[in-house]
């Protein structure tokens, strides 16, 4: 269809309307088993061509860095780039509406059936697998840091120790470790 504009797809692709933003994010959550990120990339970059691969990576890198749930931040940043604050709102609602009601449904089911023996056993089996998934995520993220020189590996381990083992309050730990880590990075930047 738009093969001729392949060199600058974002310039050629029409800017989505509010309704299109809402529907796009709503559809992503419909297919979002096992993580929503791959589906988001597929829809924006490959299907709709609203962003180039590079633009998508830039937006995603920013959202990983910002505090808060990454992918929710992505709805907001992307929506606002397309249609301003109201576009952000349309994307945000589209993304959260269905998962919210799915989870409320799950919570209701858990309330009624959480103590049923078969349910207990299944959850008892899933919980250690869920922990394993997080360990794999950490292992992937930690790779580049462990290989780097300087304070980064120490900061990483200290954070995991303070929160994971000592169970100190998050706010206190962050108030101490964030300025220290940024200061060390600033001091060692040359």
């Amino acid at each position, binding site marked *: 269809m738009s093969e001729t504009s392949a060199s600058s797809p974002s310039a050629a692709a029409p800017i989505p309307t509010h309704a299109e933003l809402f529907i796009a994010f709503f559809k992503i959550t419909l297919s979002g088993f096992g993580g929503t990120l791959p589906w988001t990339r597929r829809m924006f970059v490959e299907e709709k061509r609203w962003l180039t691969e590079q633009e998508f990576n830039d937006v995603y890198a920013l959202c990983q860095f910002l505090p808060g749930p990454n992918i*929710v931040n992505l709805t907001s940043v992307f929506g606002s780039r397309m249609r301003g604050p109201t576009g952000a709102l349309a994307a945000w609602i589209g993304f959260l509406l269905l*998962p919210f009601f799915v989870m409320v449904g799950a919570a209701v089911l858990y309330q009624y059936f959480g103590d049923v023996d078969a349910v207990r056993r299944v*959850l008892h089996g899933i919980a250690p697998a869920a922990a394993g998934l997080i360990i794999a995520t950490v292992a992937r993220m930690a790779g580049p840091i462990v290989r780097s020189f300087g304070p980064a590996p120490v900061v*990483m381990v200290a954070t995991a120790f303070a929160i994971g083992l000592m169970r100190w309050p998050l706010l206190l730990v962050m108030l101490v470790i964030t300025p220290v880590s940024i200061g060390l990075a*600033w001091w060692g930047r040359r």
Partner: protein
Amino acid sequence: MKADGGILVTLAVQFAIMALLALGGANAVVPEMHRLAVEINPWMTEREFSDMFAIAQAAPGPNVMLVTLIGYHIAGFSGALVTTLAMCGPTAVLALFLGRVWDRFKNAPWRMAVQAGVVPISVGLVGATAIVLTQVSVHSWVAAAITVVTAAVTYRSRWNPLWAIGIAGLFGFADLV
């Protein structure tokens, strides 16, 4: 129902603060949710917390929806609404503003220092989540084996994690864990 208003305000404040500290996304603040809901408040048991994390991982949708489950458990539908909005609202607004500032200072040295300083913290926070979840969910050798195998397979291959969840659920159903 007067106590409900109080708990809703508490949930709103605590989860909004948590979100603003969630460098590395929702998975970074699971230990703080655990501290809040199990350790310092009698809102749920260790087992219930571990169950809810398992459900959130197995269900479709983003990981952050764990807060919806927790909110519902503590204060019903309005609790679910409050924790979800508190976790997903303020940081989304912040992202709008920071997104613009961030682009403008693309090559500023302070921006690079902030970025370099924050990344190891965010990974450390998710590491803390891995520690806490392992502690609350692994109570047997079989459970430990499930954790290790899931972690290794997920790290090495590109299999959909749902397979690991499904197989582990079958192990549990057969009462092997």
